[in-house]
């Protein structure tokens, strides 16, 4: 009477651990992202810089006009 129950339980446990393993494997697969390399960083820097450059452009033009002897 006990034996089939234990068998079922064992099978269930094995099934669970398999599911956990598969899940873990799947998770590992998800987590494995390529480490962000330089290009991403460079693009960010360019965006920040571009904002600054656009903001300063008028002042830079004025400076060049008003000090033409050094430019």
């Amino acid at each position, binding site marked *: 009477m006990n034996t089939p129950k234990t068998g079922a339980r064992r099978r269930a446990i094995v099934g669970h651990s398999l599911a956990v393993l598969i899940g873990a494997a799947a998770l590992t697969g998800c987590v494995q992202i390529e480490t962000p390399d330089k290009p991403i960083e460079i693009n960010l820097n*360019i965006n920040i*810089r*571009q904002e*600054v*450059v*656009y*903001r*300063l*452009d008028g*002042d*830079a*033009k004025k*400076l*060049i006009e008003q*000090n*033409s*002897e*050094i*430019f």
Partner: protein
Amino acid sequence: MMRFKMWKPTGLALAAIAATAAVALAVPSAMAQRDPAYAAARAAGQIGEQPDGYLGFASTPTPAIRALVQDLNIKRKAAYTERAQATGSTVEQFAFTSGCNLIANTKPGEKYQAPDGRWLTRDDSPPVRNASCP
């Protein structure tokens, strides 16, 4: 007759004042012009504009040209520093923005440095500038 004689010196004084004013007006524009040695080195392509807002050497300079460029770059840095403080930016940011404009302002035949470091000669087409330039 007497009256005329009395007015004459006043007229001369006024003319003198006008002449002084004309000179005072003319001086800033004369000062605003490039040093002839600088203009010549620029036109000859010995020196050119760098993307960082300073002048650089497109070919090995003579000691005189080197000194001239160093002097101009010191003056540029002082100007950039003052404007950077006034605009709440860094000297590098202000200098870089000026560099974008200075390269855009180069005349055909003048040298400028591309973002990859090559010295190029400006022609009628737009110059090769950093992607951040407006």
